[in-house]
């Protein structure tokens, strides 16, 4: 994939800035604070999904991403409650702790290919979850940790309603998005794609597999840690069963539905849409939620492989009935061939 020309990049920055302004104005117009919760959760999801998608670039399919969210959360809670650190410091340290953990873990497990890596990440997630359940003195076991302090006031802003949290998550998500965008659209992104597409070819051109895999894993988990820390101090309580395999699968579903051809827009769209949808399902129709998610995911895979973020392009093409078969693979954003070819 070519990195966008300067023209296209400028448009992206302008469009995103506009979007950001709109996003910042939402609380002004939204009377019901309750709905802010959806958007806040979308933000957390978005950070996870972006990180997950970055890993996918190198052909790494993580089934343990929610676990890193949890580690960030627990780490932050412990730092704040046991060491009395302020949220802001705990936020940074949780991210760094996650990064360190990812680095060490990555050095060992990132040599594994495809499905084996997926299995390890999920085994890791489960090990961590069981650890939370059993090491009650540190992690509170089944009942988890509660009474996590809210972020200390900064610049006169007190965290006593959803609004400050909203702006904080917008800030964090934007930060993540900017970093992810720059990574994906710079040489790093190129290298990651090369490795993900053909490890042998990439190696023969001088690219060290492990170094780059560890790099992306570290970055990805750093942001997951930050998101986790935010989550802990937003909920003010943590339960071990919120960060299991299921939740990792949800990350995958949201990102895939949004579209993994892009590292920012697709995952964000997917996170927002699916989080809002899942909140809608809560209450009455919670039983329908898994069924719907499953069906939706499968439909997207077969009929809209580029995800929701490819929808405008698909509609445009259908309207113009343009046929560009050689490019259709790229439009779908799938790296290793397209669905339906045999």
């Amino acid at each position: 994939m070519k990195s966008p020309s300067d023209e296209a990049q400028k448009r992206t920055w302008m469009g995103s800035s506009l979007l950001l302004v709109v996003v910042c104005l939402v609380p002004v117009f939204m009377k019901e604070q309750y709905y802010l919760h959806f958007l806040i959760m979308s933000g957390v999801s978005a950070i996870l999904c972006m990180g997950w998608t970055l890993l996918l670039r190198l052909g790494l399919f993580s089934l343990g991403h929610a676990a890193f969210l949890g580690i960030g959360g627990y780490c932050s809670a412990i730092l704040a409650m046991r060491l009395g650190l302020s949220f802001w410091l705990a936020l940074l340290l949780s991210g760094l702790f996650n990064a360190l953990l990812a680095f060490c873990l990555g050095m060992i497990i990132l040599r594994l290919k495809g499905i084996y890596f997926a299995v390890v990440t999920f085994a890791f997630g489960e090990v961590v979850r069981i650890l939370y359940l059993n090491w009650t003195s540190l992690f509170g076991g089944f009942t988890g940790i509660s009474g996590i302090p809210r972020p200390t006031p900064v610049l006169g802003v007190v965290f006593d309603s959803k609004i400050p949290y909203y702006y904080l998550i917008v800030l964090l998500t934007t930060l993540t998005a900017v970093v992810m965008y720059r990574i994906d659209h710079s040489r790093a992104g190129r290298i990651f794609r090369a490795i993900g597409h053909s490890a042998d070819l990439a190696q023969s051109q001088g690219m060290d597999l492990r170094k780059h895999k560890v790099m992306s894993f570290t970055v990805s988990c750093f942001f997951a840690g930050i998101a986790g820390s935010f989550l802990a101090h937003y909920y003010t309580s943590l339960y071990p069963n919120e960060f299991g395999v299921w939740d990792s699968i949800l990350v995958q579903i949201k990102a895939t539905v949004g579209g993994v051809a892009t590292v920012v827009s697709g995952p964000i769209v997917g996170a927002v849409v699916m989080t809002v949808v899942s909140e809608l399902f809560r209450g009455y129709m919670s039983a329908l939620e898994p069924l719907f998610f499953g069906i939706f995911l499968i439909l997207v895979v077969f009929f809209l492989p580029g995800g929701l973020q490819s929808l405008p392009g698909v509609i445009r093409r259908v309207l113009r009935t343009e046929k560009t078969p050689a490019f259709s693979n790229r439009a779908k954003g799938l790296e290793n061939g397209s669905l339906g070819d045999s």
Partner: protein
Amino acid sequence: MALLEIRDLTITFGGLTALNKVSLHLNEPSVLGIIGPNGAGKTTLFNLVSGFLHPTGGEILWRGKNIKGLKPPRVAALGLVRTFQANLVYRDASVLENIIRASYLHVQTNLLQGVLNTKAYRRDEEAIARRAREIIHFMEMDDWSSAVAGSLPHGLQRKLGISMALACAPKVIMLDEPAAGMNATDTAHLMEKIRQLREEGIGVMLVEHDMRVVMGVCDHIIVLNYGQKIAEGTPREIQKDERVIEAYLGSEEAVT
């Protein structure tokens, strides 16, 4: 000093000895051909030299230094670059993008500078793009520079493979059956390019089945059969060598 020297290189898989004490050397920019019937171990040789396989015996020396056991990225970084027998390209990217991706070894700036989009990085990227275009021009693929690699016809994909290897600034390039499936025109072009590479000071190791190419372009040839070197010499000498003729004819008979 020889650029590349291989001594008694051996590899055994399970009970099978795929390569048995093969020795060769590549001096000064020249073109070395490696021929032999199918299964003789030619690609295995490439895999061993480029670090994709570990030999069970023997030495590999690059400019006098032992490189046995180095991983493929390190070998490439030394200037010993290979292509693949299969059409290995980045199928979903354009030809230009393929070559830019392959220009990993050529960079002056690091990844952080890339993320920060510094001036130095941008200049570096421009230089890379320029060089990529030069390579496309050298390989006469200008018309195809924005074509998607996966949609290219076979001969062009092979050319792309060679182009990508060139992007790695090789001192020696190992071409694995570059003429496979090429028509006569493409083959003639290929031979011309190989000669040009030699003129530019790049050594070439060539595994090929197409005898026109081998005899027309190689300075020196070694012949492998069943993992062993059975002959070596100039094209003329090889053409007359009885063992070589027997090896090829013998295998033909088995087929018919």
